[in-house]
């Protein structure tokens, strides 16, 4: 188990013809011993490249990676004492499950055959693949192959687990099962784990902390709750949460936000905290919006466009009355999630209530100026 520090690491790929592409740009993360860190971001954001640099499969253009204080930049992959689970599982097709799991121990340790067999047996039992040891990968289902790939990593008892979208090839049901199982295993071993995914649900549910990357740059590192409620910028706010946060562009005039089609009075405390800037974007999570009967100062009259009943909740797409239904411009529709039994239908005019406490305010460049008000600090919320 090792504390893993990424110290302003940068990766530049040089294309044929001399074009330089910055895949990872000055990323620094301090990952505590035994922590489960999820690297999340859209495809092409540099998360896999970051993981591959930690693994030693990719050289580091600049910056340092340290395991327990030791710089590992120049230590070859096989000596870094890490195990990696690949998206494609990368099992050796000609070897049995037993052979696949034993390979790493045979190549990297001096353990006797009996010891190797014992450790493989033990890990296989733990992964529930004890009775598959004599099969070859081609004879296994996707879920079983996934377990073998995990087992192959566990049996090595490495300092750091690296996982590159390990669940993305599984069907939805199996994926959520494996998600729980992975967390259980990580807790049991208490091994530092760095997990790459593009799926924000995986990031939210699995990570002790999540690191959000976009375009090679680190946007925010924090607990899932922090990132959800106190996003550092507009990108994080929109990436985390499903359905995505609503954004409306407004300008601040005195104690009011003026939007293209609405006005929203705010408290002077909020107006003061924003300061001089006037070109702003406000964000509000769909679940913070409620549909009420009586208009008041914090409601906006809107028309229901589409309702998606999910059972426990309804996802309601709202448009401004002046906007033609079905034709949407940016900032002209918002999404609200309301209770599943609350009946609304397309074409209804409703009063959407947006509480001031729930507002996120971003400046022109997308940086958060003010996060929503919370009664408890996210740091106090422990799982």
């Amino acid at each position, binding site marked *: 188990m090792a504390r893993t520090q990424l110290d302003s690491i940068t990766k530049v790929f040089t294309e044929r013809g001399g074009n330089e592409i910055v895949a990872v740009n000055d990323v620094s993360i301090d990952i505590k011993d035994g922590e489960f860190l999820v690297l999340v971001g859209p495809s092409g954001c540099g998360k896999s490249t970051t993981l591959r640099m930690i*693994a*030693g*499969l990719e050289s580091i253009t600049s910056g340092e990676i340290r395991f327990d204080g030791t710089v590992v930049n120049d230590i070859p*992959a*096989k000596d870094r004492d*890490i*195990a*990696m689970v*690949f*998206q*494609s599982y*990368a*099992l*050796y*097709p*000609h070897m049995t499950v037993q052979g696949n799991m034993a*390979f*790493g121990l045979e*190549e*990297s*340790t001096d353990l006797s055959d009996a010891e190797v067999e014992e450790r493989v047996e033990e890990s296989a039992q733990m992964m529930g693949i004890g009775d598959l040891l004599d099969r070859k990968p081609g004879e296994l289902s996707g879920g079983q192959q996934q377990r073998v790939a995990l087992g*192959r990593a566990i049996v*090595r008892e490495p300092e750091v687990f690296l996982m590159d979208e390990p669940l993305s090839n599984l069907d939805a049901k199996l994926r959520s099962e494996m998600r729980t199982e992975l967390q259980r295993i990580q807790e049991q071993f208490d091994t530092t784990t760095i997990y790459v995914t593009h799926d924000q649900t995986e990031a939210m549910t699995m990570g002790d902390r999540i690191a959000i990357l976009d375009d090679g740059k680190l946007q925010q590192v924090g607990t899932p709750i922090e990132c959800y409620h106190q996003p550092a910028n507009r990108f994080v706010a929109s990436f985390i949460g499903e359905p995505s946060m609503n954004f409306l562009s407004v300008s601040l005039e005195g104690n009011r936000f003026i939007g293209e089609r609405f006005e929203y009075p705010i408290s002077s405390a909020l107006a003061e905290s924003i300061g001089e800037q006037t070109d702003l974007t406000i964000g509000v999570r769909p679940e913070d919006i409620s549909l009420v009967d009586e208009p008041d100062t914090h409601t906006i009259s809107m028309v229901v466009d589409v309702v998606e009943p999910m059972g426990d909740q309804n996802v309601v797409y709202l448009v401004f009355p002046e906007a033609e239904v079905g034709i949407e411009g940016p900032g002209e529709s918002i999404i609200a999630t309301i209770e599943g039994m609350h009946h609304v239908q397309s074409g209804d005019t409703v009063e959407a209530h947006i509480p001031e406490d729930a507002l996120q305010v971003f400046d022109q460049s997308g940086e958060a100026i003010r996060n929503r008000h919370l009664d408890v600090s996210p740091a106090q919320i422990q799982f």
Partner: protein
Amino acid sequence: MSEATIDVDETERSLRERVRLRTVALYSAVLALVVFYMIPIQSGLVTSFKTSRAVRETAPFVPPGLEGFTLGKWEFAFSALSDGMFNSLLFTIPSTILCAIFGSMAAYGLTLAKWRGQIFVFALFIAGIFIPYQAVIIPLSEFWNVWVDLEARLGFLWGLPLLARKHATIMELIVTHTAYGIPIVTVLFRAQYKSMSREMMEAAKLDGASMWRTYRRIILPLSVPMFAVVFIFQFTQIWNEFLFSLIIIQSVSDPAASVTLILSGLGEALEGVDFPLRMAGAFISALPTLIVYVLFADKFAEGVRV
């Protein structure tokens, strides 16, 4: 209701009729092709059992009668070719194996490892495929006879048991065929290695396996079917090769003479061509390639499957 039943019955019957017709057509076509391809082989085979008189008096594809039948041509061909067969095996088997091993290693280094200039080196391999045999005949003979001259340089070996002067020529053939075969074999292996999962290679790297161990324990076992393809292909190629034998061995009467070299003169005489003898000789010299096909057929099928 009853009408409908009759209708169904009738369409079903006509459908069955059509299926039967298609089957008949298919089988007739297959049969015709079999006859077409087998006639030359069948003619050769029956001719090889004919006496010289029977050859003159019967059509090529008609089997000889009892009085026209002889095994003599086979016996003669076998005794004439047996030394050549042995010599050919002596250089074909090592060259085939060496080609496969070197080709596979070269392909591994050119595909799954990263280093500067590998594109250039691979281009050299590609170029190697296209050098025509004829272009290298003179440099080749100059190289072996003037510059290397294994027979003289390895003179101390020829006194040892089981070794003789002719083995110098055999060694020259082994080296020549290996060198000439490596480029095409490399390209064959490279095609397979290119399709191998990069993540699997990386997994092996993280598992602590060195380049060499990865090759031994992962790449080599996975390329067994391609080895079968290469064995069959290279064995046939080298066994049937004539020009290098002619240049390096030079004479039919040389103790190192290969089977193709001897076969070229078999049954040729001033009084005419002895067709039965030539046919018997051809069958005997084709036998080893057939055996190799049979031995590696299963793996070969796996290797050429897309």
